[in-house]
């Protein structure tokens, strides 16, 4: 049996999620904002795997769901960077607050 309680992993994931959230809300570089989102997704994956071992009904399903979530994160990174390139070609800037053409 594991000597580390479930709450240890949950608190670590919470701290990582908060670091990612703070970075995503304050950084101006769009690539860094995307990277911070990856960090938040990583925190969620850590929760899924922790619940798969130490949750109320431990089973392999948590790990399978973490795999799905990693796949979605990879697809999101590819599409996000493609959108970034398209925006950069039109706007010549990668700062998030320059992308305001949809502002009313």
């Amino acid at each position, binding site marked *: 049996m594991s000597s580390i309680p479930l709450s240890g992993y949950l608190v670590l994931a919470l701290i990582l999620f908060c670091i990612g959230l*703070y970075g995503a809300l304050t950084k101006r570089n769009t690539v860094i904002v995307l990277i911070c989102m990856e960090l938040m997704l990583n925190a969620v*994956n850590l929760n899924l795997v922790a619940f798969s071992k130490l949750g109320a009904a431990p089973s392999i399903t948590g790990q399978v769901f973490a795999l799905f979530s990693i796949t979605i994160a990879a697809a999101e990174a590819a*599409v996000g*960077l493609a959108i970034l390139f398209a925006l950069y*070609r039109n706007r010549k800037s990668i700062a998030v607050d320059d992308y305001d053409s949809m502002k009313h």
Partner: protein
Amino acid sequence: MISGEFAAFAILSLTAISGGILMLNVTKVVHMLISLVLTFVSIAGLYILLTAEFIAVVQILIYSGAITIIMLFGIMLTRKTDEEEPSAGRLKKGLVFASTAVFAVVMYIGIYRLDLNGDPAALHEDNTEQIGIALFSKHIIPFELTSVLLLAALIGAIILAKKDEEKEEQS
């Protein structure tokens, strides 16, 4: 007496958190990416502690390998200056920090004593085989949908990043 598992957990989680903090404080954008690799690798170590060996290897392959390289390409193809421009003002930073801290405290109150004692499952025995059996028996439809989604993301990324030929000719 500190058990080996606890020592490994402490070291790995400290490395993960310090990688994240370093990411927030380093000025050069490439260094931010490198410090994030530290976090990704130590999360892979935590997966091994949680008896998820397959996910740990996938984490190192996808995150520390593929996504970091993709983001490096993103930085190198777009940036003009090497430094991160001065970000939002002090007031906005303070507000964001305060609200993030409030969120963290609320969630911490919710989870710090949570302990669900379930029956331990033998996840470490033939981990990859167990994942494969679960994936191709219980979760076969999500698995197939994932392949369609990856194809759609691939085509979408190519079309979005492609140069717009007609517009170039007009201008």
